[in-house]
């Protein structure tokens, strides 16, 4: 092969690599479009625009803070604590690699993909805390989870040199642990301090359903999230001149991901339909639960096994939701059940079915105990820091909006605009000859 041909192949490889992750980033943006639609629909009409603003600002603040500190932490902490190795120095915001550099076709595009992972992680808890959290308090928490906490978890357990891989043989190719589980457990820690929405529970603890103002929009939002997940999972593989590899360096294919992502979606939706008796919110959340349930082993499961794991996972989420209700925890969108519960389930199930699979570079094989210890680490990393920071915000009066504002809605106070100035169409139904107009009641 002549040097000219070799140069041309090297150039094309670099261009292909950049374009691959560029597409991953673009598709992941759909996750945020989905979160926006999903949460707007899940809100009551008095909080619609405040919810949208919260999502927009979460995206903006996480991306900026991930540039300031997040990418450095990922590269500096695979050994457990901060080390100023070459990769870490290159990830400092003032280094040669953290800006336009014609000799570096990797740093920016990988930083971008990870920034979108970070924004996804930070936005997961956004729906759980709807309608009563202070936007500023939420943004402090989401920046903390999105640009600090999860990326430390990723450095430990979702990195080719992370200590959880080198010491435990940990396996989680689709980021069920570092993204979903950490976000879900962080949401739980925050919800305990935040408390439920007014009227969500009767004095005797009986839960009261506060209906979403636009469930069809919520369902559309979740379908956008499904679509965006193909970009998310695309970003979970390393694309190089010799083909695809997992983040742990073992060879894989996008075909493997296609089999199991789609079968996971299908199983999760069917499972949640069965156990929720066709309740639309849980049924469509089941699709997300199904993908997360199989995310840890997307590269290795047989699609039949994937379907069963996802169906059981999707079937579990309504029960996790009911358990939270019993504990008087008001998780508006089921984030703790879907992300926290299914992230944990995904890691444990991978330990059962993938135990004994080898890793590369002399790292230990996958084991049940390795997965279990990894899950415990992520649970603690998700829950404890977010619980403590939200407790601090609560003490400072920065966590929850005043009851008067909660009653009248954030759109009337905090947002200088109104979402539906001409009102929302309601269905008129005939009851015994007279017309009954059904409107949303506010408890």
């Amino acid at each position, binding site marked *: 092969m002549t040097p000219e041909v070799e140069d041309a192949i090297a150039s094309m490889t670099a261009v292909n690599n950049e374009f691959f992750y560029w597409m991953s980033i673009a598709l992941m943006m759909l996750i945020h479009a989905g979160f926006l639609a999903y949460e707007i629909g899940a809100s009551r009409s008095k909080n619609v625009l405040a919810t949208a603003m919260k999502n927009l600002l979460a995206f903006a*603040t996480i991306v*900026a*803070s991930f540039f*300031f500190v997040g990418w450095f932490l990922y590269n500096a902490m695979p050994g457990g604590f901060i080390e100023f190795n070459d990769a870490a120095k290159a990830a400092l*915001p*003032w*280094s*040669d*690699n*953290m*800006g*336009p*550099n*014609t*000799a570096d076709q990797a740093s920016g595009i990988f930083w971008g993909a990870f920034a979108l992972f970070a924004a996804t992680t930070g936005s997961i808890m956004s729906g759980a805390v709807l309608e009563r959290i*202070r*936007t*500023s308090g939420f*943004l*402090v928490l989401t920046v903390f989870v999105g640009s600090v906490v999860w990326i430390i978890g990723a450095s430990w357990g979702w990195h080719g040199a992370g200590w959880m891989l080198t010491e435990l043989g940990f396996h989680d190719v689709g980021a069920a642990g570092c993204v979903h589980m950490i976000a879900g457990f962080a949401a739980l820690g925050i919800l305990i301090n935040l408390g439920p929405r007014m009227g969500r529970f009767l004095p005797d603890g009986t839960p009261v359903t506060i209906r979403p103002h636009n469930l069809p929009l919520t369902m559309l939002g979740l379908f956008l999230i499904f679509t965006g997940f193909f970009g998310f999972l695309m970003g979970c593989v390393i694309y190089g001149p010799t083909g695809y590899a997992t983040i742990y360096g073992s060879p894989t294919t996008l075909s493997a991901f296609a089999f199991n992502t789609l079968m996971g979606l299908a199983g999760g939706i069917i499972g949640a339909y069965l156990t929720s008796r066709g309740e639309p919110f849980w049924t469509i959340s089941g699709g997300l639960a199904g993908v997360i349930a199989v995310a840890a082993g997307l590269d290795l499961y047989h699609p039949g096994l994937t379907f069963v794991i996802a169906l059981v996972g999707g079937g579990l989420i309504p029960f996790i939701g009911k358990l939270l209700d019993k504990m008087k925890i008001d998780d508006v969108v089921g984030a703790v059940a879907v992300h926290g519960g299914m992230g944990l389930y995904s890691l444990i199930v991978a330990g059962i079915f993938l135990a004994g699979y080898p890793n590369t570079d002399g790292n230990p094989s996958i084991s049940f105990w390795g997965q279990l210890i990894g899950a415990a680490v992520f649970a603690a990393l998700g829950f404890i820091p977010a619980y403590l920071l939200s407790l601090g915000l609560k003490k400072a009066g*920065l966590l929850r*909006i*005043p009851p*008067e*504002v909660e009653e*009248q809605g954030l759109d*009337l*106070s*905090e947002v*200088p*605009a*109104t979402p539906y*100035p*001409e009102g929302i169409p309601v269905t008129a139904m005939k009851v015994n000859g007279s017309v009954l107009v059904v409107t949303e009641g506010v408890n």
Partner: protein
Amino acid sequence: MFSPITSYDEPGVVFTFGGNSFGTWLFFILAVVLFVGFFVRMIQHENHAYKAIIEHAPVEKGPAAEGEPPVY
């Protein structure tokens, strides 16, 4: 004026000021300060808005726009 290069002959850093330079440091610090300032300003806005709604005062001065909810 802020270019770190004089030609594109050698591949390398092309961003303004160049890596590890005073200009890069200055704007990094300014970006972080503005980021923190955004939070401070937002908390001030929230406190003002919440106070106004609790005191039954208009949040925004001036006439209401068509279709806006009436001043509480």
